[in-house]
């Protein structure tokens, strides 16, 4: 008898559990937590989880997996999330080549994809999709903004360089599209190159009045350190990717004085951002990077849409995402028709106020910047 009671009790519990699961929302996060550049993925995850924790909802399950920056791993994780876990929303990918491997097929299979970082031009234009949203930026945005800023700042002849791979050529094209002036030289370096002696000698020998570079990760660290040692005193400009708080820690004083463009700064003064920076520092014991703010904003966008509709109700959920009715750490935030942000891009300067170099907000580079691929999107 007792056994029977237990069994029926278990059955009842199982059925209530099953109904609870039907309303539950599953979010699959594929991000880079190991290997080169893993601090980007770690910060996106930590920012995302911080927002989830602050929301305190127990009907949302977040599954996190490491793609190790490998497209094939990301692809198989996405298949696992979609087919086995039946997730409603995918997010987390850092690198554009991984996003291109995963996103186009993933959104066709059902889940929404909300990008906290990678914004390749194809996904903003030709391959845009009603279930794909980018909360961060289109890849070219920060370079375009720096081109515009340097033109305003009356820079005459910059020396520009980037690695010879798609994001590198996009970066210099984006820069040139807004700068439209004379260049001292345009140099493509090898991807993964760590010795820049040859390029630095060219910079010194040129008649450039400034340097713009896009060298993400370890390449940027090596370049900045060698730049400081080469005795060149031209002003340096670049996108925020080479000057996040983690990289500044490795570059040291060599980065002081560099101006960089970012859609966010930790000293951007609005209540949401102040609260975010304070709570992030308290929980993780470090200053958040722009990637952490993107993870935080991504989670809050998802939460705001979940308040309106369940992802199973696709049209309502998509409309709720498009409305972007959440408090962004960037202040004003809205989506363009291709589901990419239209936002202000700021200029920051690296300063040292006694406890290591850090970024300080200087001003706005471009207001309401929209990506240049929106016309190619059919949405």
């Amino acid at each position, binding site marked *: 008898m007792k056994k029977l009671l237990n069994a029926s009790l278990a059955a009842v519990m199982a059925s209530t559990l099953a109904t609870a699961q039907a309303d539950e929302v599953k979010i699959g996060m594929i991000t880079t937590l190991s290997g080169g550049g893993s601090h980007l993925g770690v910060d996106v995850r930590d920012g995302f989880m911080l927002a989830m924790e602050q929301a305190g909802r127990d009907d949302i399950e977040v599954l996190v997996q490491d793609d190790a920056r490998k497209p094939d791993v990301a692809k198989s994780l996405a298949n696992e999330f979609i087919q086995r876990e039946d997730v409603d929303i995918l997010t987390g990918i850092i690198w554009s080549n991984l996003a291109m491997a995963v996103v186009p097929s993933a959104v066709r299979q059902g889940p929404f994809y909300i990008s906290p970082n990678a914004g390749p031009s194809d996904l903003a234009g030709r391959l845009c999709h009603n279930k794909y949203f980018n909360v961060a930026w289109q890849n070219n945005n920060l370079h375009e903004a720096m081109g515009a800023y340097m033109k305003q700042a009356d820079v005459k002849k910059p020396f520009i360089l980037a690695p010879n791979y798609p994001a590198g050529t996009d970066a210099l094209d984006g820069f040139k599209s807004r700068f439209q002036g004379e260049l001292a030289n345009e140099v493509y*370096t090898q991807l993964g190159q760590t010795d820049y002696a040859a390029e630095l000698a060219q910079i010194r020998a040129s008649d450039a009045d400034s340097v713009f570079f896009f060298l993400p990760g370890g390449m940027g660290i090596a370049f900045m350190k060698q730049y400081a*040692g080469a005795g060149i005193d031209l002003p340096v400009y670049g996108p925020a990717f080479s000057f996040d708080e983690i990289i500044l820690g490795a570059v040291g004083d060599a980065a002081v004085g560099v101006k960089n463009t970012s859609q966010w700064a930790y000293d951007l003064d609005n209540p949401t951002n102040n609260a975010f920076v304070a709570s992030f520092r308290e929980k993780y014991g470090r200053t958040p990077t722009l990637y952490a703010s993107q993870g935080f904003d991504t989670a809050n966008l998802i939460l705001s849409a979940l308040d309106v509709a369940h992802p199973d109700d696709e049209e309502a959920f998509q409309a709720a995402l498009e409305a972007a009715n959440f408090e962004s750490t960037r202040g004003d935030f809205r989506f363009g028709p291709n589901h990419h942000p239209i936002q202000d891009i700021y200029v920051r300067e690296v300063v040292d106020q006694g406890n290591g170099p850090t970024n300080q907000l200087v001003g706005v580079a471009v207001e309401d910047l929209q990506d240049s691929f929106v016309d190619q999107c059919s949405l």
Partner: protein
Amino acid sequence: MTLTLLIEQVLNGIQLGTMLFLMASGLTLVFGVMGLINLAHGSFYMTGAFVTAWVTGLTGSFWVGLLGGVLAAAAVGAVVEWTVIRRLYHRDHLDQVLATFALILIFSEGTRWIFGSSPLWLNVPDSLSGSVTLPGGVEYPLYRLAIIVMGVAIAIGLYLLISRTRLGMRIRAGENDREMIGALGVDISTLYTLVFALGAALAGLAGSTIGALQSVQVGMGEPVLILAFVVIVIGGIGSIKGALIGAVLVGVVDTLGRVLLPGLFKLFMAPSDASGVGAALASMLIYVLMAGILAFKPNGLFAAHD
């Protein structure tokens, strides 16, 4: 292209070459003496850099850090030889590649586990920062100049060690006939451990000095390892002299290719296309050089076992 710029770029090439020589000499010694292909050589480079960054952070002195990095790389090399590598001498090269590749993964994950995945901070010491003006008006970073001087000193030291000392004689004998030298009563296993640790120490020295110039991060050794393999293939496997010539050749060709090729293509192409094509071709140049040399000298320039 002015003459001073050309001189500076040649110096840059030689500096890259001396760093490659430090890596390649250990690799080629280990292969020449023990017949072992060691893919984990880049891990000693990384170990040297990380320990240097860590000790420098603790003590505030780059020189103490450098010493610590070199000693740590040598110690790790000796331990690895003693625990893993010595079981591989009699296996074929495929087993060696597999086992030492596993070591790369273990070292990378282990380093991440201990030091975290963010790059560490390590800077050029104050006494060697800034640049000096060389005769002829070439302004050159002092630290890079110091690397060249150190590389030359080490090349001379290695030459003396191998040609003039008892240890060097045994190393040469080991290259020629390892059974015979064992039969003559030389403690072959201690000799192997010593040679392996020496190679690891040189790799650690390269990692420590270059770490101050570049970034100290997990996986920093593998790109250098690939270049070092190119160097020993060009120079002739097992030959220290070949490693030296090959390293300087690769360093100078790589550097000058990166500088001159885009300029060459700009003569008849649009500037943005020219820099792309030039950069792409420049990154292939050392492999073209390797293929060219192997076509005429299949064993490399100074093969030890001709």
